[in-house]
C-alpha cells in the first residue's frame, strides 16, 4: 500500500467537494434567499425537474447515511425507538426521524431547512410510502406530491405504465411544483437539463466500464459510492455535474493507462488479487473498517448493484430531452430496486461475466427488504449460472448494533481463502490443458 500522505486530491474530488459545499450553503440560506426546498428520495428522483423550478433538494436517505458515517445514527435510532418505532424496521427511517427530533442538523452542523414540498417518488421501495406518511405528519404545512412508480414486474416497461406516470406528473406533481415555486413549468428548461444529464450519464457509464480492465483502476463499490453521488442526488442535469464526470473519467482513464490500482483511504492498492461483484448497500457506520478488510486482502469490487439505485445506465437507458416527462417516467421505472428478481439476476450474471469477476458477494442489509428479500435465491442462481464462488455477509446501513466487525472479517477471510484455492485449481487446470 502506498503511503496515504502521497495521495494528492484529484481534481474531481475537489469539484465534488465544492459542489456539496455550495449545496449545503444554499440550503442553509434558503430562508434568506427565498429558495424553496423539496424533500425527496434517491431512487427515481426527479432532480432535473426540481432544478428546473429552481428548488433545492434534500434527500432524507443521504442525511441518514451521513449521520451513520458521522457516528450519530446510533443515538438517532434509539430516540426514534423511544418514540415507539420498532427495532425491526428500516433504520434509515428511524435515523431520519431521530435526526429531526434532534433539531434536523445536517452534516455541516447547520439546521436543514424545513420542506416546502414533499415529493414522494415511490420507487422500488415500499418503506418510502410509510416514510413520507411520517414526514407529512411532521411537516403538516408542506405540500405533498405523490408519484407512484409501477414495478417492472414483467421485466419490461410498458406504454400503460409510462402513461400512468406521465398523467401523475401532469396532474399531480407539476401543479404542486408550480404552486410551491410560484413558477410555471418550463419544458424547454427541463429538456436542457436532461440533455446535460445524458452527457453525464455517458461519462458515468464509461467510468464504470473502466473496471473491466485488469487490474481495475477503480473500486466500483467503496469508491463507487462517492463517484455516484452527483448523478444520483442533487446535481444530475447541472453543468457542474457534467464537468465532474468528464474530469473523473479522464482521471481514471489516465490511471488505467498507467496501470494504477484503486485509491483507498490508505493510499493506492498495490496488487489486485480478487475481482468481485457485490450486491447490496454498504454499511455506513463502519464504512472505512469495512472497506479496509477488502483492500487489505487485495480485493477490488469491479461492479456493484448498489451504485445503480439511481439508475442502471450501463444497460443503455439515457434521459430523452425530446420527451421530457416520458423520460422521467422511464428513468424512475429503470432504477435497480424497481427491477424484478429475474432482471436483477440477469444483471449480476452479466457483471460477473463481463467484468471477469472471481466471486460474487452479497452484503445483506437487515434494514432493507427491498434489497434483501430474495437475495439468497439470487445467490444460488448466480452460483449456478456462473460457477464463481459466492459469499454472504450481513450488516446494516446505519444501525451500529448490527455491524459485527469480527464476524464479518472471519467470514470474509474464509471467503477469500476459497477464492484463492479456486484460483490455484483453475491455474493448475489450465496448465494441464
Amino acid at each position, binding site marked *: 500500500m502506498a503511503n496515504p500522505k502521497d495521495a494528492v486530491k484529484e481534481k474531481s474530488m475537489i469539484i465534488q467537494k465544492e459542489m456539496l459545499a455550495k449545496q449545503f450553503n444554499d440550503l442553509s440560506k434558503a430562508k434568506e434567499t427565498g429558495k424553496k426546498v423539496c424533500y425527496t428520495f434517491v431512487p427515481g428522483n426527479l432532480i432535473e425537474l426540481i432544478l428546473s423550478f429552481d428548488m433545492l433538494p434534500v434527500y432524507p436517505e443521504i442525511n441518514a447515511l451521513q449521520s451513520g458515517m458521522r457516528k450519530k445514527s446510533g443515538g438517532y435510532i434509539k430516540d426514534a425507538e423511544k418514540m415507539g418505532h420498532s427495532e425491526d424496521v428500516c433504520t434509515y427511517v428511524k435515523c431520519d426521524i431521530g435526526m429531526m427530533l434532534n433539531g434536523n442538523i445536517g452534516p455541516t452542523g447547520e439546521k436543514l431547512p424545513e420542506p416546502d414540498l414533499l415529493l414522494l417518488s415511490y420507487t422500488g421501495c415500499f418503506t418510502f410510502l410509510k416514510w413520507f406518511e411520517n414526514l407529512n405528519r411532521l411537516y403538516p404545512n408542506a405540500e405533498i406530491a405523490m408519484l407512484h412508480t409501477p414495478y417492472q414486474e414483467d421485466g419490461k416497461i410498458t406504454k400503460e*405504465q409510462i402513461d400512468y406516470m406521465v398523467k401523475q406528473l401532469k396532474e399531480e406533481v407539476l401543479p404542486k411544483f408550480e404552486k410551491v415555486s410560484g413558477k410555471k413549468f418550463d419544458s424547454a428548461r427541463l429538456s436542457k437539463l436532461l440533455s446535460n444529464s445524458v452527457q453525464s450519464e455517458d461519462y458515468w457509464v464509461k467510468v464504470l466500464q473502466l473496471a473491466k480492465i485488469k487490474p481495475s483502476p477503480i473500486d466500483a463499490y467503496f469508491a463507487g459510492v462517492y463517484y455516484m453521488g452527483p448523478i444520483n442526488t442533487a446535481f444530475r442535469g447541472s453543468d457542474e455535474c457534467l464537468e465532474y464526470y468528464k474530469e473523473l473519467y479522464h482521471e481514471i482513464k489516465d490511471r488505467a493507462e498507467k496501470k494504477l490500482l484503486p485509491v483507498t483511504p490508505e493510499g493506492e492498492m498495490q496488487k489486485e488479487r480478487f475481482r468481485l461483484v457485490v450486491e447490496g448497500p454498504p454499511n455506513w457506520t463502519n464504512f472505512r473498517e469495512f472497506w479496509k478488510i477488502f483492500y487489505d486482502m487485495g480485493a477490488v469490487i469491479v461492479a456493484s448493484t448498489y451504485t445503480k439505485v439511481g439508475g442502471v445506465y450501463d444497460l443503455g437507458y439515457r434521459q430523452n430531452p425530446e420527451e421530457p416527462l416520458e423520460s422521467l417516467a422511464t428513468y424512475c421505472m429503470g432504477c435497480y430496486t424497481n427491477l424484478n428478481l429475474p432482471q436483477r439476476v440477469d444483471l449480476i450474471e452479466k457483471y460477473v461475466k463481463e467484468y471477469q469477476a472471481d466471486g460474487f458477494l452479497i452484503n445483506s442489509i437487515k434494514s432493507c427488504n427491498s434489497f434483501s428479500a430474495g437475495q439468497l435465491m439470487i445467490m444460488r442462481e448466480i452460483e449456478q449460472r456462473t460457477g464463481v464462488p459466492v459469499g454472504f455477509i450481513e450488516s446494516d446501513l446505519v444501525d451500529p448494533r448490527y455491524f459485527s466487525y469480527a464476524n464479518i472479517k472471519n467470514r470474509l477471510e474464509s471467503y477469500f481463502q476459497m477464492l484463492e484455492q479456486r484460483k490455484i485449481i483453475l491455474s493448475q487446470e489450465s496448465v494441464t490443458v
Partner: protein
Amino acid sequence: MNSLEEILSWCEKTAFDLEFTHAKQWKSKDEKRVIVGYLPIYVPREIIHAANGIAVGIMGTGDRKQIIKGDAYYQSYICHLPRGIIEMALDNNLNGFDGFLFPAICDCVRNLSGMFKLSKKGKFQRYFDYAQNFDPFIGGTFYKHEMEKVIDDIYNVNGVKASVDGLNKAIKLYNINRRLIEEIYDIRQKYPWRLSAVETYHILRAGICITVEEHNEMLQKILNVIRNERGEAMDNIRVVVSGSFCEQPPVGLIKSIEMAGCYIVDDDFMLGSRWIQGDIEEDTNDPLEAITKAYLNQSTFASCYYDVGNPKGKRLVELVKRREADGVIFSAASFCDPALLDRPEMQKECDAAGVPHINFQYHENTGQFKVIKEQAGTFSDSIKLWA
C-alpha cells in the same frame, strides 16, 4: 353439514388444509377450471371467478408446517410468511395451482413474485400493483389495466375470457359474501359470545379456500344460528385488533386474547375478504370500472395504501368508536415493516382520542402465549378498573 358445530369443524379443517384439497377437487371437475393463488392482502376475486377460476388465499403455513427449506431462502430478519410459502411451493403443496398473484403490499411479497418467476411455479406469476393515485382517470385507468393483465393471464391458461355477464354475476356473489361477513361482525359487536373470534377466523379463512357460492351458503347457515342467542356473556372488555393483515397470528394467539378477557369485536386478520366497504355497483355495462371505483373509493384503511388525506390512525379510531370497543391491541408480525412503521402514528391517534392500547409481536408459528395472555389480561383488568 347443517349444524353449526359441523360447519365450524369443517371450516377449521379446510382453513388449514395446506394441500388445498377442496379447491383442487373443485378444479378437477372441469378441465377449463383454474386455481389462482393470491397472497395477502387483497385481490379483486371477482375477475378470477368470472374467468372460471377459484381464487385461493395463501395466508402462510401458520404453525401447521415445519419450515426447513424456507429458512434457507430467507435471512433471520425477514418475516415468517414468505419462508412458509416457499416451503409449500417446494413441497408441492401448490401443485395444481395455475397462477399466483402477489399484491403490492410490501417488498417481501413483491420479491417473492420474482422468486416464483425464477422457479417457474405455476403458469403465471404476477405482481398485482395497487394504484396509489386515486383519481379515476389516472389511478383508475392503471388499476383497470392491472386487472386486465390478470384476465389475460387466465385466458392464456383456459381460453375463458371474463365477460360482462360473468363479471356482473361475480360482483353480485361477492357483494353477498361481504354483506354476510359484515353481518357476522355486526352481530359479534353486540353479542360477541355468540361466535368466538377463533370460530369467526376459521369461517373467514375457510372462505378463501372454497368457492364463493359455497361460502355464502355456509355463512347463511351460520347467521341463521347466531341471529339467535347462543353461548353465555362474560365480563370481558371489547377490543379491536390491528396490524395482523398479512402474516396471520397463530390461532393460539387469538384464543389467548379472548381467554384473557378481551372480546375481539373487529380485526384485520382476513382483511382481503372485507377490503371493499359496502357493495360494488351491480349490473353495469362496465363491471371492471365498477370494481375499480370500489377500489378507489371504498377500500378499507390498510398499511399498503397511501393514506395522506385520510390517515389510518383516524380511521382506526373511528372503527373503535363504531364498534364501541374499549381499546386496541396492536398485534403485528415480527419484521413486518408496513405494520410496524404504521404503529407509532396509529398509537398517537389512539392516545389523542383516549383509546387505551397495548402491542405485541408474533410469528405465525409462535407457540408460547403466556406473556401475551398476561399482557392482554392486565390490559383487560386495567380497563375494567378505570371504566
